[in-house]
């Protein structure tokens, strides 16, 4: 099963069939292109579609132009608020305006190789893992044991740990006024300190998940990497990239609380001549019943908690995961996600830091602390020149 591909598009034909007067015509773009094109259209004041999908990491750069999109409350969106997770719903609000409806979410969990954990004498059942690895120090200790007993790295890359800890904070890189707060955000300092610890302990690989996927996949498939900290959709990644490890993986709560990675929103640009029809389409496509259908078809995890009681989430075991009922875990952690504001320039900063820290991960002669703060300075310069 390939997850997280073609989610919403699969149910568009059904919407078109039920609504003979409307035809939703999907246009598919690469992630980067879709957001760039929309931003260009917004800036130019022309060229926008009737409905646009925007990823959570990019959302704030569009929400800073609230007048360019319809306030969906004009069509009665406020009546739908109770259908969605509150934190997800609020992410697309600007003041009282509701500028988008939520698609899926990415509640984060710890995927791990139960067989390697067992081999190392570590807890291997999900409840035991969650109970005995409750904080990141315990996670690093487990990594040390794992490395000694099995030779496997507990992390593909120390930056994966940095990202997980960063995303557990109340704030990320920017505050409400879009001021860069990396230097004063204790969670970022904590995330960096654990990056450094994992690197120094020699329990993390240096696989470049962004740019060297085949090498990373081969390591994942051959048992060189024992965990993957990711979202609900990440299970598809493991199944696709590490097919030879079928049955050996499990998932548990991550230490110190969950986070959210990914998920999107649908917006209606003001340029459309058919806002009413566009709203009819998005409110149908993202209603609980349809989110459940998409989850069945693709594995995308719904942002509508009323469907979490469906058998798909309460009773379906997954063979690749040793029969574990992953939906139970995802639904549980989904409710604990905090609302975080990324800000319109989040990705600009994150790209600079993640690319720079990848070079540091590979080159052991570089001092991560010095390099990290140099990258922050680089990000500041880039923001000033924007």
């Amino acid at each position, binding site marked *: 099963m390939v997850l*997280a*591909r*073609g*989610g*919403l*598009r699969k149910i568009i034909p059904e919407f078109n069939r039920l609504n003979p*007067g*409307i*035809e*939703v*015509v*999907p*246009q*598919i*773009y*690469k*992630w*980067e*292109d*879709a*957001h760039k*094109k*929309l931003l*260009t*259209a917004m800036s130019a004041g*022309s*060229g*926008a*579609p*009737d*409905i*646009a*999908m925007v*990823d959570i*990491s990019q959302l704030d750069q569009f929400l800073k132009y609230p007048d360019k999109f319809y306030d969906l409350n004009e069509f009665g969106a406020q009546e739908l608020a109770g259908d969605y997770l509150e934190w997800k719903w609020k992410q697309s609000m600007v003041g009282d305006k509701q500028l988008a409806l939520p*698609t*899926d979410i*990415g509640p984060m969990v710890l995927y791990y190789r139960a067989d390697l954990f067992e081999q190392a004498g570590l807890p291997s059942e999900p409840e035991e893992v969650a109970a005995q690895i409750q904080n990141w120090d315990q996670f690093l200790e487990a990594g040390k044991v794992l490395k000694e007993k099995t030779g496997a790295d507990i992390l593909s890359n120390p930056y994966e740990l940095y*990202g997980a800890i960063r995303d557990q904070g109340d704030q990320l890189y920017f505050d409400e006024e879009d001021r860069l707060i990396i230097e004063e955000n204790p969670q970022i300092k904590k995330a960096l300190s654990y990056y450094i610890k994992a690197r120094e302990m020699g329990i993390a690989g240096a696989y470049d*998940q*962004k*740019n060297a*996927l085949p090498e990373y996949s081969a390591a994942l498939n051959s048992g060189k990497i024992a965990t993957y900290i*990711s*979202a609900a*959709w990440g299970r598809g*990644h493991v199944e696709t990239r590490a097919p030879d490890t079928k049955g050996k993986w499990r998932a548990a709560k991550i230490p110190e609380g969950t986070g959210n*990675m*990914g*998920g*999107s929103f649908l917006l209606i640009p003001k*340029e*459309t*001549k*058919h806002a009413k*029809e*566009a709203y009819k*389409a998005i409110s149908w496509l993202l209603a609980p019943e349809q989110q459940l259908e998409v989850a069945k078809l693709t594995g*995308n995890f719904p942002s509508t908690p009323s469907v979490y009681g469906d058998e798909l989430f309460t009773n379906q075991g997954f063979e690749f995961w040793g029969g574990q009922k992953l939906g139970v875990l995802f639904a549980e952690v989904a409710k604990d996600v905090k609302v975080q504001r990324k800000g319109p320039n989040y990705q600009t900063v994150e790209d600079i830091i*993640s690319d720079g820290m990848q070079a540091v991960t590979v080159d052991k002669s570089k001092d991560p602390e010095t390099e990290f703060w140099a990258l922050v300075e680089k990000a500041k310069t880039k923001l000033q020149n924007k």
Partner: protein
Amino acid sequence: MKRSGRRKPWMLAILVMALLLSACGSGGDPADSAGAEPEKSGEKVKLQMWFWQGAAFEKLFRSSTG
């Protein structure tokens, strides 16, 4: 030879064909045409919907909702 001043039937046919082709558009980049008067097929309203997919999922750091 004197021109008649009236269009011949085959000229009208070419004119109609050209108009029809122009109305159909190229089917190319939607950004080139979006924002203009929405396409209609009879009484049907066509809504252009932009999705993203794929590459980001391959890079692991983002979900792939589309």
